[in-house]
């Protein structure tokens, strides 16, 4: 009906370029690297393609996030949420680091990693989108389809849990 139909190849590609990275990051924080966020992005966009005649371009983003939130990963094949960190940056700046310091630093990062991986899916997604991607609470609320208050609570709870985790000796 609309001349601006998503079923048109160019329009669809444009939408992919606009939202795929954001969706990928979101899925990574939600499910971790082992559950193939790239493939999940593909899956979500194929769903969009299948329904292209029903969805207005302005609704494409919220459709994609709704699909992403509902992707029911097969419970049997679902893997533990694992996230990776890049250790280089912090090391680069400080040349004069003692091996001891490096060891401590590594230990800290491992604890943090375990802490993040042990957060609930909801807490982790909201927390990382905010702290890493710099998304505002309102934006996150829209992506997850929850209230802003709930987002704030999740972020705060996540932070408290992580503090406890890294504080342990």
């Amino acid at each position: 009906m609309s001349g601006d139909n998503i079923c048109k190849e160019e329009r669809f590609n444009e939408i992919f370029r606009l939202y795929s990275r954001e969706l990928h990051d979101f899925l990574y924080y939600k499910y971790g690297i082992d559950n193939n966020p790239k493939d999940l992005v593909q899956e979500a966009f194929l769903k969009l393609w299948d329904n292209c005649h029903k969805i207005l371009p302005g609704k494409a983003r919220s459709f994609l996030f709704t699909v992403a939130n509902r992707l029911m990963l097969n419970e049997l094949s679902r893997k533990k949420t694992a996230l990776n960190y890049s250790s280089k940056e912090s090391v680069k700046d400080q040349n004069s680091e003692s091996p001891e310091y490096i060891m401590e630093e590594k230990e800290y990062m491992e604890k943090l990693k375990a802490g993040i991986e042990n957060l609930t899916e909801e807490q982790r997604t909201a927390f990382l989108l905010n702290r890493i991607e710099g998304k505002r609470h309102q934006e996150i609320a829209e992506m997850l389809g929850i209230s802003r208050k709930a987002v704030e609570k999740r972020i705060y709870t996540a932070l408290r849990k992580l503090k406890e985790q890294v504080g342990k000796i």
Partner: protein
Amino acid sequence: MNTDQYIEKWLNGTLTEQERARFEKTDSFKELKKLSDSVRQFKAPDYDTEAELQRLNRDKSKRGKQIKIDWRRTLLKVAAMLTIVVGGYLIFSYYLPATVETSFAESKEVLLPDSSVVILNSVSKITYNKRRWDRNRNLELVGEAFFKVKKGSKFDVKTSAGTVSVLGTQFNVKQRKEFFEVVCYEGLVNVKTPVNDNELPAFYSIRFIDGEVIKSQFDNKFEPAWLDNESAFSSVPFHEVTSEFERQYEVEIVPQNVDMEVLFTGRFTHDDMILALKSITFPQNVTYRITEDQKIILSGEVE
């Protein structure tokens, strides 16, 4: 303000300039800063948008162009078509004459548009126009039917033997081969044949057999016997009786040495063939026999 409150405000970005300065001097802020900075190292891995787009387009074409059927639209189309066809048929049929027909051993009640009622006896047929029925009440009859006509304009029943006209009454019309009979149960009926015009008041019947006109009065009765699953005759040639029997039981009657012109008075039921056979044969001094191919042979007395 305690540490937790500071942290919460810091997270929400609602610390004032003063509060922030104070908070940044605390140990818990240093901890928090380290944690927050370290968390950034968990950033999602690189994502090559163009490569992923190519992959998606490959998958899309691999699955083939899906023939997408929008069921809602298809359903609407089908519904629209049905509406046109059904609507067209209804309009069309409104202009076409309506026909109601009965077969052997069957009777049917028909409600006409003005709520007059026609009850058709076996092997009979009426044809009429639903359109402008109120102004033009006429129908064609082949066979036998009982009419309960609502008061109104003239009501005509056309048969091959003549036309019966009334204003509102109850009457029975029977037109079979050479036999034509009208029985009036209420009101006044006009029976017009090529030969003459007859006014028929209630409880009178008129009968035309082979050019002969017989008008007679009968006792108070409200409806013809066949409505009670019986056929009643009064001084009717026997072949009329056997014809009626054939229509009611869907059988063939073969007379042998039987005078079919002899007049018969009596009745037979429509529910029990053997009983009915006995009722019509006994008074005539006739015997019957049913053959294997379900024909009924009537034999007269052998002299």
